[in-house]
């Protein structure tokens, strides 16, 4: 390979090789060095990634530690409020592998959605919310695993601000002092999709549902890989190392045919404020730039993403577009839900398909899943809850994998 790219042929030849980046010449700093310096000065506590962990390669080559277990599940308000099968699928996967985790109630939302929507906060307020959650995790001994892509991106940006601005650190420490908490920053900020990515081979080992007939598109979540870009996972084997590897690598590992489309870099149209009070923008962007493009170019059975807002925008925007005869009708799931389905999770007790509005039945039909049988079973659960003979569904009801294609 030539070092000097002067002709089109040389440039194309260079682009045909996967990108393997050398961390030693990366243009960004290693945040951990700065964190440990602050810890040595007594300014912060750095919560170490618990063992066992696995090292994954980030955009510029730095190895990022991803914990296997002992994780404190920093839940997403969008998941838990509007797509609960997203959160329960993440925990179900942990339970299937017998991994130790904590589902805390000493946790608030990062409040980043509100901040990006209204700016009705400030740097000190946002940093203190993050630091309070991290201190709460540290007190339990469990390591934060962030479910929401926006929380993940927001926290990475706040970590940068805290590391680079002493005034902000001092202010956050003063506020935390009111509640008797230290300023704790984890050694790594880890998104759950990185954990799913790390687990992909083990997921495939426990796979019971053949997915080879499925074509899916992937929407990479903006706040996962655009904010503090150097902290996202990349792999030379996936898109030649030019795009984040999470989601796509897992889907390919379980046999899904991942199809490419031209607007992969576009956002989903969520807009934070827009999705709540100005949804004409969200609907238009989501349908015209994402769903319809996917439909026209590859006509997938499914689109898969790894963040709260993306699932909501892409799924919920499709209904109104039908009135304008737009090409829609692609069910939307998270990577965790697809992984759980592949391993035989109950479609309604765990994956909670009924919270998704774009018709998911053709997708399950194509997989040969006898969803009606499980829907009837779930209706029996609901009847029992209504009758007061059952207080609710528990993990005892949901843990066991089911034979999804059985008649």
């Amino acid at each position, binding site marked *: 390979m030539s070092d000097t790219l002067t002709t089109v042929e040389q440039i194309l030849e260079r682009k045909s090789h996967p990108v393997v980046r050398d961390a030693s010449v990366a243009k960004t700093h290693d945040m951990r060095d700065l964190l440990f310096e602050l810890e040595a000065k007594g300014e912060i506590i750095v919560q170490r990634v618990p063992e066992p962990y696995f090292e994954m390669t980030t955009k510029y080559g730095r190895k990022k530690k991803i914990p296997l277990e002992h994780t404190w599940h920093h839940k997403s308000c969008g998941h838990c409020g509007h797509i609960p099968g997203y959160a329960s699928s993440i925990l179900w996967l942990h339970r299937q592998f017998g991994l130790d985790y904590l589902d805390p109630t000493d946790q608030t939302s990062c409040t980043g959605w509100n901040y990006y929507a209204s700016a*009705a906060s400030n740097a000190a307020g946002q940093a203190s919310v993050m630091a309070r959650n991290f201190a709460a995790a540290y007190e339990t001994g469990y390591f934060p695993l962030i479910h929401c892509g926006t929380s993940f991106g927001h926290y990475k940006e706040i970590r940068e601000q805290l590391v680079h601005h002493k005034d902000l650190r001092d202010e956050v420490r003063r506020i935390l002092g009111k509640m008797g908490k230290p300023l704790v920053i984890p050694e790594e900020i880890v998104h759950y999709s990185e954990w799913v990515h790390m687990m992909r081979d083990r997921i495939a080992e426990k796979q019971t549902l053949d997915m080879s007939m499925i074509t899916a598109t992937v929407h990479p979540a903006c706040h996962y890989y*655009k904010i503090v870009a150097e902290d996202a996972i990349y792999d030379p084997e996936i898109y030649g190392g030019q795009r984040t590897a999470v989601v796509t690598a897992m889907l390919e590992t379980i046999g899904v045919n991942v199809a490419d489309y031209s607007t992969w870099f576009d956002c989903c149209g969520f807009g934070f404020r827009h999705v709540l009070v100005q949804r004409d923008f969200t609907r238009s962007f989501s349908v015209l730039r994402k769903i319809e493009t996917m439909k026209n170019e590859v006509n997938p059975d499914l689109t898969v993403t790894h963040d709260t807002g993306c699932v909501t925008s892409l799924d919920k925007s499709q209904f109104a577009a039908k009135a304008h005869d737009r090409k829609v009708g692609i069910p939307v799931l998270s990577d965790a839900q697809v992984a759980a389905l592949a391993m035989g999770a109950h479609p309604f007790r765990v994956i909670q398909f009924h919270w998704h509005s774009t018709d998911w039945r053709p997708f399950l039909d194509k997989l040969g899943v006898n969803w009606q049988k499980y829907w009837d079973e779930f209706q029996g659960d609901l009847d029992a809850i209504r009758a007061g003979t059952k207080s609710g569904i528990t993990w005892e009801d949901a843990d066991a994998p089911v034979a999804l294609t059985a008649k």
Partner: protein
Amino acid sequence: MPTTLENWNPGKAENRHPEVAYEEKERLFLEVKNDLRFSDFLYGCYECGICVATCPSARFYDFSPRVIAQSMAREDVERIYDIISEDIWNCAQCFSCVRCPRQNNPGGLVTILREVSLKNGLQETKDALQGYSRVIYKVMLKGNQVSPDMLQPDFFPDWGPWVGEFSANMQIWRKAIPMDSIRGVTDAAWRVDRKTLLELYTIWFESGNMDIIKELDEALYDLLTEVMQEELEEG
């Protein structure tokens, strides 16, 4: 108007908001410039347009992250006031624009502009956030941005008949979720400990967050303050 030696003002915008004094516009700009994050978000601008090409809002609105970065770099006070009063609420905050080869963060600049606009009670910002107060109430009081009980057919008619089906079954569906932290909870995304909420309220008061709310919506401020202070006194 023809360009003459008298009105030639290279690179700077004309005064489109004469109702606001230049000194006031300059004061707002200096508040933006003095934010501790400003120097992290702006390094100059090549005018390459990569940020515009990736920007979702640029496709549907008269909105340009490049103009924002350029205006900030030129310290074009008039143009920055136009942006504050007309543009900032169109940004989708996706941060696609941080693909900038100069490492600018136009989305971050918008965040600072929004904060300054809010703190100074600009009417355009109050208008843009009309209807949003209930979300602020929820997130500040419950520690969650959204909750199942917000999914009402009146608010989400464009999401189709699913919203009606959900709304009719919400209480039962919420009990049919295996996670202990979520099961049965309808007014928040998950069950948040009372102690945790009191700590959150402490953050809102101590960080100056409540002053921002007061500027935005005094009735909301009064409501939040009353509930939070009562809880903090009891706690």
